Every structure is written in C-alpha cells, then in structure tokens.
C-alpha cells in the first residue's frame, strides 16, 4: 500500500466538539453562535412561509394570526429572532472579510512569540460584536418601549 495515500480522520467528537474540545477561542464560540442562530433563522423562515400562507384561509384567519403575533410572548420570540438575525448578519460580515483576506495582516516569518492572523483580526471582531450588541439593545428598546 502506498504510504502517501490520504488517511481519513472521522469527526469523532460529533456534536460535542461544537462546544468544547480543548482551549477554544472567542472566535470558536462565535462560530458556534453563528451555527445556532443560522439554524434558528432557517427554521423560522420555513415557519414564516407556512404561517403567512394563512392568508389563503381568509380575512378572519389572517387577523386572528396577526392578533396572536401582537401578544407579549410573541413579542419576546420576535425579539430573540431579531437578536439572532443581527448576530448572524454581523458575524457574517466578519466571516466574509476574513474569507476575502481583509484585516488578517501581511504574511510574515513565524518568529516566536507568534502573531497569528486570528489575533491580528481580533480588534475587528470586538468592534463588530460591540456594534451587534448595540443594535440588539437599541432594537429591544424600540420593540418593548415604543
């Protein structure tokens, strides 16, 4: 057998590896948040398509649904959805910038103590997350205290 043939390493940690598999960094937890918020948003999108189809059942059915959405528990759900969307979008901007190679610094010789691209990128991460937090707080204030 050729010793240079690729060896497969199965994802043995599975879902547990999402949360902890050693010293995860801040960015790794953002990655977890991005996945969770993304799954929540796609679930909501599918539900939203089904729920807005209620219009085909007539005016009363539609108005009943809108009255339900105006109730306090749905306001809270709406806010959580808004927060998930803001977080996902802002972190997505960060990921896009990284994907396109922005804010990673120029490649340089690895001399100890190493300066990784993640660390060079981190100030931007903090700024983007602070902005996301601000938008989430402001959005909550307009939703709950109109």
């Amino acid at each position, binding site marked *: 057998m050729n010793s240079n043939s690729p060896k497969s390493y*199965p994802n043995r940690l*599975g879902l547990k590896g999402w949360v902890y598999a050693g010293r995860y960094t801040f960015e790794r937890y953002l990655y977890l948040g991005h996945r969770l918020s993304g799954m929540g948003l*796609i679930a909501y*999108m599918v539900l939203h*398509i*089904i729920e807005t189809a209620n*219009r*085909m059942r007539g005016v009363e059915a539609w108005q009943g649904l809108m009255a339900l959405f105006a109730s306090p528990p749905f306001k809270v759900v709406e806010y959580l959805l808004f927060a998930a969307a803001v977080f996902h979008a802002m972190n997505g901007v960060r990921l*896009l910038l990284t994907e396109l190679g922005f804010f990673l610094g120029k490649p340089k010789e690895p001399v100890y103590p190493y300066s990784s691209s993640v660390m060079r990128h981190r100030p931007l991460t903090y700024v983007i997350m602070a902005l996301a937090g601000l938008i989430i707080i402001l959005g909550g204030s307009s939703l709950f205290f109109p």
Partner: protein
Amino acid sequence: MRETRLWSLHLLVIPIIVVLLGTHFAIIHYAPVFYGMSVEEARSFEVMIERGRSIAQFVLYILLLAAGLYHGLYGLRGIIRELPLTPALAKLVDVGIVLFGLFIFGFGTYVTWWTFSFKIGG
C-alpha cells in the same frame, strides 16, 4: 469544483438577501418610518393583499425566497455533512435537503402567486 461553486453561490446570495430583506423590513416592520403607517396597518389583510398584487413585490418575494432558502439550506447541509455520516447517508442528506428546499420554494411561490392574482371583491 462543484463544491467551490456551491460555496461561492452561498456567499454571492448574501448581498441579495441583505437588500431584499432590508426592503421587506422597511415595508412591514419600519412602515411608520418609510410609509407613515402603523405596523398593525401594514400587516392588515387589505394592505398586505394590495402590496402583494404589485409586480415589484412579486419579484422581490420570489427572489428573497430563492436566495434565503439557498443560503439557509446550504448552511444546514454543511452542518449536517460535518457529522460522522456514511457516504450513502451523506447523499441522502443532499437529496433530502434539495427536495425539501424545492417543496418550500414551490409552496412559497404558490402563496405569492395567490396574493399577486387576488381579485379584490371577486
């Protein structure tokens, strides 16, 4: 190469989602700011039907459906495909997600068409 194309499309639909979702928010959730009407009024049956009968709204929602479903379901596929799956199960996930996406897109398109072709008083 196929995966690169799918990933590139996943990124390319982001600006489409941002613009169209922003428009959707402006029309409904920010109706008091952009249209001078309350959110309740913007969500009323009559206003929703009136809005849905315009060609611009019809195009906006079909594009948003396609872009949002592609971005979301491709992301979900990536998450599921990362789990330890056999090649047969991974294939099943791919086919299942495509069929589910097509079904939801078809259903959403039908609802949008129903609204677009709604006859007021008819």
